[in-house]
């Protein structure tokens, strides 16, 4: 085990869970205190982004353009033109769908120093349904040049990725999970862009995951171990650029790869891994995610339904060993 992981006292499945938005707002305030260029930009999403305290502490530095996502992202690009570092905080479904052309042209193509923070992504809104789910965001933004995509798996990684983004010039999209997750990483963990982390070694099969599904993959590996299957678990916080070496090595050293993510099965992390493997090291693969507009159900229900319970992930892994 690498020293960046939190020392396990018990299975991740039994540990307390945290909403990553809390780490997000604490870190944004910490960054704003030390760098006057940092500003928040929201589409009325002060409450849903948990930014009330930030607004009190920095009333001038929380720009609320109202319910107007195209304007929100254009304004962020203009703030960056003026030397500010905007952290755009909005529900990922509206941020990435409604303002996609602004993300492409004003931010990515123009290479503006804008940090796009997709709050409550994936199926976090559960029963509110596919209008509010943001399972497409990764696939949409992956298609855009000059965009770094980060999907943190816990509060520690969320905070560390934000610190890296603030210190690094250029466009970044960070998902900020609303679905509660256990703390996976130790306090001293430092996010490295484009680097996979082998959170569990193994040589029979590989599980590649990120975001809210990573802990589920880690629990799946615990289960597989009891059945005599040695599963490698790779945490892939950066979907773009992808860590090619880690993916190719996993394909070479294990019998197959399962990807599991809180997003669509078309063009997400699974698609990114498949694109690499088919060109460099064809391997047996299973892509877990949401293949369709989800039916009514809680976020947890939906992840389980689409094969991303720990048991479901373990079953997919075993299917590659047959």
């Amino acid at each position, binding site marked *: 085990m690498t020293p960046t992981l939190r020392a396990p006292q018990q299975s991740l499945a039994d540990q307390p869970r945290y909403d990553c938005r809390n780490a997000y707002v604490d870190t944004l305030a910490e960054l704003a205190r030390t760098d006057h260029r940092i500003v928040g930009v929201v589409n009325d999403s002060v409450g849903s982004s948990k930014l009330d305290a930030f607004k009190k502490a920095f009333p001038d530095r929380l*720009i609320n353009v*109202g319910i107007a996502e195209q304007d929100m992202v254009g*304004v962020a690009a*203009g703030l960056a*033109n003026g*030397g500010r570092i905007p952290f755009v905080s909005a529900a990922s479904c509206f941020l990435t769908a409604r303002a996609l052309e602004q993300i492409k*042209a004003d931010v990515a193509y123009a*290479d503006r120093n804008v940090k796009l923070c997709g709050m409550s992504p994936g199926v976090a809104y559960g029963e509110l349904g596919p209008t509010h789910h943001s399972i497409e965001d990764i696939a949409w933004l992956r298609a855009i040049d000059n965009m770094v995509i980060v999907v943190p798996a816990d509060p520690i990684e969320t905070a560390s990725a934000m610190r890296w983004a603030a210190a690094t010039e250029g466009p970044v999209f960070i998902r900020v999970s609303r679905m509660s997750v256990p703390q996976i990483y130790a306090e001293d963990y430092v996010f490295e862009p484009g680097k996979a982390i082998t959170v569990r070694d193994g040589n029979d099969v590989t599980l590649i995951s990120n975001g809210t599904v990573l802990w589920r993959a880690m629990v799946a590996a615990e289960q597989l171990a009891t059945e005599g299957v040695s599963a490698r678990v790779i945490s892939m916080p950066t979907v773009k650029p992808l860590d090619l070496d880690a993916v190719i090595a996993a394909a070479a050293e294990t019998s197959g790869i399962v990807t599991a993510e809180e997003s669509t099965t078309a063009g997400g992390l699974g698609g990114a891994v498949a694109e690499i493997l088919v060109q460099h090291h064809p391997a047996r693969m299973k892509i877990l995610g949401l293949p369709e507009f989800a039916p009514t159900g809680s976020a947890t229900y939906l992840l389980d339904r689409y094969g991303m319970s720990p048991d479901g992930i373990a079953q997919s892994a075993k299917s590659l060993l047959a």
Partner: protein
Amino acid sequence: MSALAVEHITMPVFGRLSPHASRADQVAHIAEAARQIRIQDLKLVHFANAGHIGGDLSAADILATLYGAVLNLDPRAVDDPERDRFILSKGHVAGILYTTLAAFGFLPIEELATFLKPLSALNGHPNRKKVTGVEANTGPLGHGLPIAVGHALSAKLDVSRRRTYVLVGDGELQEGSNWEAMMAASQYELDRLTVIVDRNRLQQGATVRETNDLDPLDQKAAAFGFAVVEINGHDHGELLDVLSSVPFRPGKPTFVIAHTHKGHPISFMSNNAAWHHKVPSPAELQQALNELGADVDSPTRGTAA
């Protein structure tokens, strides 16, 4: 002028007159810059065999006034954080932006000949990473105004006097993002933001009125919290007076409706929707250049930048 070639895209570099120059001298300076910019732009489109000549020419006087006498910009200090910002939202008239930038020393005049050629920095829509002086990568309509609002907000946060100007097409105002941005500009009292509408009343293939009318545009802008001014967008004196004296009302952003004609002042192009992106033939180019007095030597030149 009978054997025009791409090398003939050339002109003097117009600097800025002293701020103490008389208004009459400023206006003459702008007028001559605008004339030269039009001459070079016509050649640019002719030799590239593409471009948006109608909208280029409707915006030429606005651009010449901004760069010639209004914007606090220095081609030797293009990254000065305190510079004024000009954002061309109607990015399809990149040709007139490039000729203007070249006229005022931001872009080597020789580079104009590469317009739209493979690997040229001069794409059909401006790219700030490739062309010095470009502030935003525009092209899809309805993007410049929100970016301008963002910059004006940054200036307000900095307690800076720097100003933000954005040029939008009138057809472009059919994009809803503009109105989102106008609400925010008003809410944040961005009185150092000026929106200039190139009100040529034509869009790609028809009039704005018969497509999706904007009138009463003045009342709409006023209702969105702007101080509204209507001017002749081809009158250099009016442009100079208005664009250099914003804000008109403290706490309010300014909305300048500049009444223009597509293709102005070329007789066969003016106010003719067919010239949205038509390319002048050699004979048409020659006639247009004659109408602009292209053989006449430049009577006024500013201090070279």
